[in-house]
């Protein structure tokens, strides 16, 4: 018999309460992990999508809060393309376009002459021909969720587009895209001769040193900022808000798990007041008595965290199979994600155990022994 054995015996003594407490911790930890993972995965999916497009730099309006928020005159694209070191540049209008089939789809408008059309990994059909209007290429999951195939018509922002191709991108975000000619999207969204971002490929690789003079030259044009894809996402206000909200909810969820431990242990110590009196009577030190209670809390926390991690993996397995979620984001739990959540849960659970433990050792042993 040791303190861990004693704690296990005490937990087994109240199986229903112990199981419910552990489940509560598990759900809280699982929710926290899922929330943070979801927020991270939205960022990661977007980053992967941008990587797949293959930019060295992304140019946005200075001060734009996100990739939807700023507008750049179309002629700026030509000025950027003329900068020494820039291999090619393409304007892009980005918007969530309302469709009659689903709420909205992420829609990109590219100029007819953009190099980006050449990089579309077509699964079937073709890309728009030069000067062709009101045509669209759909990512495969966008096509599936819209129920469209090559040759069908699609309604976007009140305009009809003829589907001419289906793209087989590999990243979740790009698979959900609708690509249309820039002019059509500019007209439909009342943004004539405007783009939201400019994609830029730079000569001689994409190292920070090589990019620096090009960035400086682009930013010298005024009212624009050139960033790498990572920087764009790091500075994106939407992602920052999403991450802050997820973190706040995750903290609340983890705090709930600590409250679970606190509640279970307060009740347990109240019920076991007499036992605590016995421990004191046979000479256990305050530290040992507290330790016996904290170990109970830690054991519940360990098992609860394992349940929580398993639940998060279950969610990671299940979410991609739910079209409403899986078509938009990927969900990948990782050690870097799990470790801080578990650490926070542990610290809070130990703190939650300390209160009942402290209350226990404050009792006069003789009074504790008189309790039933």
């Amino acid at each position, binding site marked *: 018999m040791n303190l861990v054995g004693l704690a296990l015996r005490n937990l087994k003594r109240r199986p229903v309460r112990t199981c419910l407490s552990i489940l509560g911790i598990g759900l809280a930890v699982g929710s926290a992990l899922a929330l943070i993972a979801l927020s991270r995965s939205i960022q990661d999916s977007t980053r992967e999508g941008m990587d797949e497009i293959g930019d060295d730099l992304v140019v946005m309006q200075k001060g734009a809060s996100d990739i939807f928020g700023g507008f750049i005159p179309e002629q700026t694209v030509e000025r950027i393309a003329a900068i020494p070191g820039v291999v090619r540049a393409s304007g892009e209008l980005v918007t969530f376009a309302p469709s009659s089939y689903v709420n909205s789809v992420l829609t990109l408008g590219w100029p007819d002459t953009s190099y980006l059309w050449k990089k579309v990994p077509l699964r079937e059909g073709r890309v728009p021909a030069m000067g062709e209007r009101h045509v669209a290429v759909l990512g495969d999951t966008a096509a599936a969720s819209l129920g469209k195939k090559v040759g069908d018509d699609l309604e976007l922002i009140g305009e009809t587009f003829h589907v001419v191709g289906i793209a087989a991108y590999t990243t979740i975000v790009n698979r959900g895209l609708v690509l249309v000619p820039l002019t059509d999207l500019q007209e439909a969204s009342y943004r004539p001769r405007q783009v939201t971002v400019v994609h830029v490929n730079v000569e001689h690789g994409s190292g920070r040193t090589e990019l620096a003079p090009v960035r400086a030259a682009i930013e010298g044009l005024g009212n624009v900022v050139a960033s790498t894809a990572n920087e764009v996402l790091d500075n994106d206000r939407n992602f920052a808000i999403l991450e802050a909200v997820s973190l706040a909810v995750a903290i609340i969820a983890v705090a709930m798990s600590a409250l679970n431990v606190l509640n279970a242990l307060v009740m347990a110590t109240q019920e076991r007041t007499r036992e605590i009196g016995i421990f004191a009577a046979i000479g*256990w030190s305050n530290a040992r008595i507290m330790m016996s209670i904290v170990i109970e809390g830690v054991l519940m926390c360990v098992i609860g965290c394992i349940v929580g991690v398993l639940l998060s993996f279950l969610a990671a397995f299940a979410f991609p199979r739910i079209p409403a979620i899986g078509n938009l984001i990927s969900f990948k739990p990782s050690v870097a994600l799990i470790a801080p959540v578990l650490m926070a849960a542990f610290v809070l659970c130990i703190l939650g155990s300390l209160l009942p433990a402290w209350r226990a050792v404050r009792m006069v042993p003789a009074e504790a022994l008189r309790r039933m």
Partner: protein
Amino acid sequence: MIQAIERNAGSDKSPDAVPQVALRGISRLYDGGAIAALRNVDLQIKAGDCVAIVGASGSGKSSLVNLLCGIDYPTSGAVLWEGRPLRTRQQWARLRRLRIGIVFQEFNLIPTLTALENVELALLGRGLSTKRRHTRAAVVLDRVGLEPRMHNLVTRLSGGERQRVAIARAIVNEPKLLLADEPTGNLDSVSAANVTDLLFRLREKTGMTLILVTHDDALAARCARRVRIRDGVIVDDTSQAIVARTIGPKAAT
């Protein structure tokens, strides 16, 4: 008769010896002073003594014992162990771990544990390996005649057996002082006799001090010294009478 009592009473009977445990001007009040369990009590118990504390229910016997082992704290006065006052909970806890064993009327065993595990609990914190704790607890249970039932949950044991487990737990650390608070109060007459015999036999073997709280005069008579309490005050102490009769009234006052 007096010589026989003196022989039974223990090893160190010199009048100058430092008492093993002493209460000095102890009062214990409850409810903000409305109830006085003990009032200005002085008591000295020497190493090896066998003392019966007798009195009616509610007279203050248990309060006295609780203070003697530090599981309760006096409202005023001091408790001294080998001449030194004990003030902190940690001091008392250490003393109970190493020097004092307690046997309660209610047994106070952990119901979810076996007899062996209950005894082992008292060995935690002694720096012993699991194996040594196990062996030592088993040896003590064997000494109290419970070796065959040591793996039974204590809830499966009879009252007499439970009290023997409690005694085993109290003596497993080889205490210098054993306090037994109405140890036979919840037992039938046969079990009570067995438990009492066990306590006295253990005391004879080890020479430890035994303080026995009881309202049973016959049981108290087996102790060399009897302290009678009434309404929180010691009204009779046979040792003082013995001293008075041995060395004269002047010395006793």
